């Protein structure tokens, strides 16, 4: 490995590294605008100039490969002079509008101008003005501020896989944009805001809202999909103003999907801020004791089998545990967390998790997607698949409704018959999977949330076993979830007990009292007219509309919660702000209710409840850890692999922008849905 001396510090770097990487290794910070670790190297901003011994002029360190015994100076007079010159050029046309710029306070150009800028401009000429572009409802543009680093162009082309941004014209007339005005068609467009080093691309919903130094920052976990991206929640005065990604190389790298980032305005609308009780057919505002008393009155005389509970899609494991324990104390085993009716076999954990892991996708060498559109169901995971394919030699086949996944995928059928073809080898892709060393299959909820779901799951497992996806050191069988709380609920066994009723059996009067824990995603009209419905949740959505008693709960930024993502990775979200009005953290509501109902839950603190979680399933002790494992037991999930139906697969997320109570309450998401999926948005109204 070449040895490089940076400012007197000698470091050994891998051959092929750039001078900039060597300098970072030596702990020297190099200013940059166009260079970004996860994008291709452009080398056009020239801010990273350094002096290299024996080189006649400063070199752009981001694009200059190291050589053995190279001597680099990152802080020499020549380097500083060069960077000052570059900064002066960059500022020729950059407006002096920092006081009205949303990037102010977190702007690379602002920061670096402090280090390398002059105190005044030597240019008397007019600055150039560039017309703003309309990139849709999420990204605001002030193109006069653009320094043409082309990061956004490279992000859209390379990471998001939507080559729609470009630099048109040349020289002083060069502009970054789409040329033909249209909104970006990416679920990752919010990341453009993060990678833009200046204030050219900023957040449209967040425009002129606040300054970064006024915000309280809380590290948390995203639950808008089942990827479990690491996020930072920015709040001010009890209001969630912004959600930004944090770096988690194993999950989201440093990206975040648009729904997770922009649906937060839904946290302020349609909130349940006080208990409600139905009296004489009318919902009336009530106090907590009145609400609990109403439940206790209805429960009197009910046996366990007439009581049921359904856990929602964004529920934290603590609340799920508390509800399960409460139901246990009431003698009920009628539990279900699968609102979509997914035929999941929870006998073994690897039957329902994404066993390859998200980072593990990069090690795979062939992929089959069954009944899923990962671009809409898990955009970040989809970006990882794209990253793997861009790296080369990664055949992808998909079964379901053909769609643009941002990478090359062969659509080999739209229903279970294609699966049969793969199993008997008549479909060509079967041999691709067999020849691959580390093949993987992704089974979407669209494939298993249907009457023959168990058979399809079993057939996929059989295919996995046949094609070498199940090996002692490689597990290529993956179920892709879309609900942030689903895997946690499955881990806690929030499923019907022996002879217990599942969701279907609880409908139509199957139970007399139904406790909905933020469950809004099934058809409420299926609930029997005489069933007494307790809705505990945070939004006035479908469940609250049907409820007889409403217990106002907390949304994900308003509680400490444990969430398990689709991989089975246990992560903890944090409390960032208080729930509105009388709303409370969900496990506390359940604890209080249990006392009124005369069956007190045996925990009074979050710590005690978390100890209970660990007792229920030891995976909850492994926070943020995801051991990789293979599969040596090939016995598959329950279901007859031959009993496949005929119907074509339908993705479970037809409308990416409105999938849960928060995003349905969000005005920003409504705008996106109207723009990108007009037919669906019209149907929803």
């Amino acid at each position, binding site marked *: 490995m070449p040895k490089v001396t940076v400012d007197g510090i000698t470091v050994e770097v891998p051959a092929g590294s750039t001078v900039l990487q060597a300098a970072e290794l030596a702990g020297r910070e190099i200013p940059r605008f166009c260079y970004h670790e996860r994008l291709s190297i452009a080398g056009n901003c020239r801010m990273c100039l350094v002096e290299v011994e024996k080189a006649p002029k400063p070199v752009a360190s981001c694009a200059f490969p190291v050589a053995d015994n190279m001597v680099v100076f990152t802080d020499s007079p020549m380097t500083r002079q060069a960077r000052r010159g570059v900064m002066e050029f960059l500022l020729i046309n950059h407006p002096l509008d920092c006081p009205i710029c949303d990037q102010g306070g977190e702007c690379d150009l602002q920061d670096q101008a402090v280090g390398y800028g002059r105190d005044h401009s030597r240019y008397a000429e007019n600055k150039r003005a*560039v*017309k703003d*572009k309309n990139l849709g409802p999420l990204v605001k543009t002030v193109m006069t501020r653009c320094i043409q680093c082309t990061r956004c162009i490279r992000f859209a*082309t390379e990471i998001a896989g939507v*080559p*729609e*941004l*470009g*630099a*048109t*014209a*040349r*020289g*002083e*007339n*060069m*502009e970054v*944009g*789409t*040329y*033909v*005005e249209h909104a970006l068609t990416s679920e990752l467009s919010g990341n453009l805001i993060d990678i833009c080093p200046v204030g050219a691309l900023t957040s449209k919903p967040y425009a002129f809202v606040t300054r970064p130094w006024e915000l309280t920052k809380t590290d948390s976990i995203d639950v808008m999909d089942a990827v479990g991206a690491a996020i930072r929640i920015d709040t001010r005065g009890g209001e969630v103003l912004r959600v930004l990604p944090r770096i988690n190389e194993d999950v989201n790298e440093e990206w975040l999907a648009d729904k997770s980032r922009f649906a937060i305005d839904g946290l302020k609308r349609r909130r349940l801020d006080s208990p409600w009780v139905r009296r004489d057919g009318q919902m009336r505002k009530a106090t907590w004791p009145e609400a609990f008393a109403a439940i206790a009155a209805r429960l009197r005389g009910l046996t366990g089998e007439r009581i049921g509970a359904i856990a929602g899609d964004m529920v934290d494991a603590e609340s799920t545990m508390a509800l399960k324990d409460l139901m246990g104390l009431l003698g009920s085993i009628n539990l279900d967390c699968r609102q979509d009716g997914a035929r999941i076999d929870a006998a073994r954990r690897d039957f329902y998790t994404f066993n390859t892991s998200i980072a593990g996708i990069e090690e795979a060498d062939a992929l089959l997607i069954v009944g899923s559109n990962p671009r809409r169901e898990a955009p970040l995971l989809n970006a990882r698949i794209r990253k793997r394919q861009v790296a080369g030699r990664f055949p992808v086949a998909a079964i379901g409704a053909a769609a643009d996944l941002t990478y090359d995928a062969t659509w080999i059928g739209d229903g279970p018959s294609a699966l049969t073809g793969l199993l008997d080898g008549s479909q060509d892709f079967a041999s691709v999977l067999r020849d691959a060393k580390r093949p993987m299959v992704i089974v979407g909820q669209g494939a298993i949330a249907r009457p023959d779901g168990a058979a399809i799951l079993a057939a996929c497992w059989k295919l996995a076993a046949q094609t070498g996806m199940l090996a002692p050191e490689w597990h290529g069988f993956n179920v892709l979830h879309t609900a942030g709380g689903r895997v946690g609920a499955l881990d806690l066994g929030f499923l019907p007990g022996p002879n217990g009723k599942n969701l279907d059996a609880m409908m139509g009067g199957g139970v007399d009292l139904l406790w909905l824990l933020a469950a809004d995603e099934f058809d409420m009209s299926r609930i029997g007219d005489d069933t007494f419905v307790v809705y505990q949740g945070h939004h006035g959505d479908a469940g609250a509309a049907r409820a007889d008693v409403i217990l106002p709960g907390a949304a994900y930024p308003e509680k400490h919660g444990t969430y398990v993502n689709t991989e089975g990775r246990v992560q903890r979200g944090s409390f960032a702000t208080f729930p509105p009005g009388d709303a409370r953290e969900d496990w506390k509501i359940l604890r209080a209710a249990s006392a009124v109902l005369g069956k007190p839950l045996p925990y009074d603190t979050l710590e005690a409840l978390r100890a209970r979680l660990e007792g229920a399933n030891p995976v909850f002790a492994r926070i943020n850890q995801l051991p990789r494992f293979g599969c040596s037991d090939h016995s598959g999930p329950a279901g007859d692999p031959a009993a496949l139906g005929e119907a074509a697969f339908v993705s479970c997320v037809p409308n990416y922008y409105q999938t849960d109570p928060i995003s349905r309450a969000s005005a920003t998401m409504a705008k996106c849905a109207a723009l990108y999926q007009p037919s669906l948005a019209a149907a929803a109204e």
Partner: protein
Amino acid sequence: MAENIGDGSTGENIAQPAHFAFDDESNAEIEKILAKYPAGKQASGSLPLLYVAQRQMGRQTGSAWVPRVAMDAVAHRLGMPPIRVYEVATFYLMFNTTPIGRYHLQLCTTTPCWLRGSDDVVAACRKFTGIKGWHETSADGLFTMTEVECLGACVNAPILQVNDDFYEDMDAARTGELLDALKRGEAPKPGSMIGRMTSAPEGGPNTLTTLHFQTAE
């Protein structure tokens, strides 16, 4: 400001044709062009294909420009994202992204041409066509004037490029005659307007005049 450079954000304020398809002549040309590139490297053909599109527009409408639909057609033909073709087409000034006249007068005003009287040529063009600024088209739609940088024919300065042809050794009078001929629909012979053989000295050779070559026996 450089007015002769197309506005990069255009596409909105000019009337764009609704449809463009390569005709037979263009398709024949494209086949020849694409045969030069190995499979998977068709994107290299974007420059020549844009020229094909521009020439076809010239043939069909008398205005050799590349509308957006033509860029889309090129992108489709080469399997590229349209934006990549937009970038190329707007970068090179030889592609006209706005409609132009039948005769595109490209006037070099760089130092050698200027020293040899390009200002007179420009003035003559303005007088003849009635065009006031740069990158404007005359009222009759025949002429568009564009200021260009060095055309690389300084020995025959000043140069007036009309569409693809160089007219050299220009002055005000000869410019007037040339434009008159063009207006009548004639196609004057390109090259030196004073009868020079390429860039040979005016009035015949003035060096190596004593050399005599014997004819081979």
